[in-house]
């Protein structure tokens, strides 16, 4: 019998973060040129920590998640930077080694629970298949027991009956629970959850978020939660990373990002969310929209929309610099001015 928490605890070394990403750069060679989709992204996640990665669609947040589990869609590839998982470098591993990490040490949850499960196999079969992949020596009976246990853990009532059912016999929320169970099957240190609640109704969304939060706490698992919904982030994340046009513009504890954002983009983003308890006359707004991949401006990609932009912003790219408890990539916070 494998005790997931114990196994995780053994691997644990307090000083080493579960995930450490340094200067990640992802390129897509398209036609004659290479498009840079992600550039200079660095962050880390500790044990039991939930890092929310937020940004508008096209900012590159899902791509980062895919890169971490080694499932970047060709021809995309990691062009620079390093990824360390509990101290081990994993970005340069051969494909077979990477596959051994997937599911076993890094679990993944995707947006649409309706399409994440193979419709032709029972939930039980998909679970035991995954368990056997990661624990080849486990007996059939044990694997089935383990699968039931996982189902129970993610809140599926009557796992014995549900075990032999097919995905289409479950509701959307239930399917997402099964997806989570599958992600947990290998006892991973890190779970990458890519918009796990976007396709769900608000009341179900809250249930799934509560489940994720509980898992992070009880299993001490690091979770990277990718979403475009600031509300979701505010609800569950410990720290937040804000992405814009392939770059990390701000990262820090959730309270700081939500209450005292530093980067002009984060400031605008926060201000443009309609408040729940007041009815203001107008909402703050950022003019324009995020440029499409491939037509990103030079310098700080946010400068065309930035109210504080100066000539410097057009030519050089600001690096992520600490600004209080958070770090922001803006010249305003690097002791200089935008001019």
């Amino acid at each position: 019998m494998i005790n997931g928490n114990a196994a995780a605890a053994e691997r644990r070394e307090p000083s080493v973060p579960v995930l450490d990403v340094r200067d990640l750069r992802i390129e897509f060679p398209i036609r004659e040129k290479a498009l840079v989709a992600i550039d200079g992204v660095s962050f880390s996640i500790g044990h039991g920590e939930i890092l929310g990665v937020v940004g508008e669609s096209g900012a590159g947040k899902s791509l980062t998640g895919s890169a971490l589990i080694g499932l970047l869609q060709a021809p995309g590839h990691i062009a620079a930077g390093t990824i360390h998982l509990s101290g081990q470098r994993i970005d340069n591993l051969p494909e077979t080694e990477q596959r051994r990490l997937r599911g076993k040490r890094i679990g993944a949850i995707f947006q649409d629970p309706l399409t994440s499960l193979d419709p032709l196999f029972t939930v039980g079969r998909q679970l035991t298949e995954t368990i056997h992949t990661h624990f080849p020596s486990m007996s059939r009976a044990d694997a089935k027991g383990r699968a039931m246990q996982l189902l129970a853990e993610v809140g599926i009532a009557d796992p014995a009956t549900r075990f032999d059912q097919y995905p289409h016999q479950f509701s959307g929320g239930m399917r997402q629970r099964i997806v989570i169970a599958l992600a947990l099957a290998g006892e991973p240190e890190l779970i990458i959850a890519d918009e796990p609640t976007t396709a769900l109704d608000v009341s179900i969304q809250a249930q799934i978020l509560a489940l994720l939060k509980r898992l992070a706490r009880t299993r001490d698992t690091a979770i990277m939660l990718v979403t475009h919904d600031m509300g979701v982030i505010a609800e569950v994340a410990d720290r937040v990373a804000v992405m814009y046009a392939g770059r990390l513009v701000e990262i820090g504890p959730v309270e700081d990002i939500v209450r005292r954002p530093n980067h002009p983009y984060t400031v605008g983003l926060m201000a443009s969310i309609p408040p729940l308890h007041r009815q203001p006359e107008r909402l703050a707004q950022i003019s324009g929209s995020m440029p499409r991949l491939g037509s990103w401006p030079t310098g700080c990609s946010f400068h065309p929309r930035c109210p504080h932009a100066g000539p410097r912003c057009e030519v050089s790219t600001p690096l992520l610099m600490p600004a209080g408890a958070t770090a922001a990539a803006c010249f305003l916070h690097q002791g200089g001015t935008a001019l």
Partner: protein
Amino acid sequence: MQTAADTALIKVVNLGKSFDVSEPFLQRVVTRSGRKIVKAVDDVSFAIERGTTFSIVGESGCGKSTITRLVAGLDRPTAGEIAFNTPNAAPVRLQMVFQDPIGSLNPRWRIGRSIAEPMDKAVSAADRLARVGDLLKTVGLAPADAGKYPHEFSGGQRQRISIARALAADAELLLLDEPTSALDVSVQSQVLNLLKDLQERLGLTYLFISHNLSVVRFLTDRIGVMYLGRLVEEGSGKAVFETPQHPYTKLLLETIPDMENPRRDREPLTGDLPSPLKPPSGCVFHPRCPLAMDVCSQVRPEMQAVANGSKVACHAVAQGAATT
């Protein structure tokens, strides 16, 4: 004294819409099953004052979109009626803005043509062109954009174009079906601001549909909360948000992540949404309701006015009101 309903631009009374989702005849014979009727909208009444915004909130499948389609005349109601209060009973000029910024514009038409589509056929080509230019300026785009195709615009811009099209026919009533839910937050605020500006400038009336409570809060004057085809609470924005009465409304507000109060732990609403094919008896919310009583599973609660000016359909609230 004039009641609200008398001056209302639109009055919806006991509106109902059922869909026949029965299996084919032969199969019903074989399986000896009867017809299957889904009541997507069941006995819904509300009225919208001219120049105000009425919002309907609820989770997917609650029937809010069906109501807009009924009001728009895209579907026919199976019960109740929709009355418009217009001078000389002229047909109301209504237009709609849709959720999906990609599907709401014909991808093979230049946007100028799409915007001009609702215009009166009698208008000359030159006048149309000028009007399209004006409309584009109104929604914050350039007149020259009329010659471009939808795929050349971002999602937010496309929603602006949809709004321009809606304005093209001098609409007095706009049906807004989740107009910002597909947009990113920074763009959402642009569109919301635009809608608010237009309402002020042109005196438009909005019927606004959304599942996003904070968006609704920003734009609305009155709110109706729907659950499984029925209206469970209706009242002014302030009343519903600050003193919600119905347990569902309360729980819904509870589940919304609160930006001003991050990282809080809360107890989410348990259970799944029931299937509209087999709605629970009595009060449809009773299986998930923390206040459920015996009567809830038997008697369907009626909308009743409560102290804060809202109307609520709940036995517990009615009893509470009676006992206090």
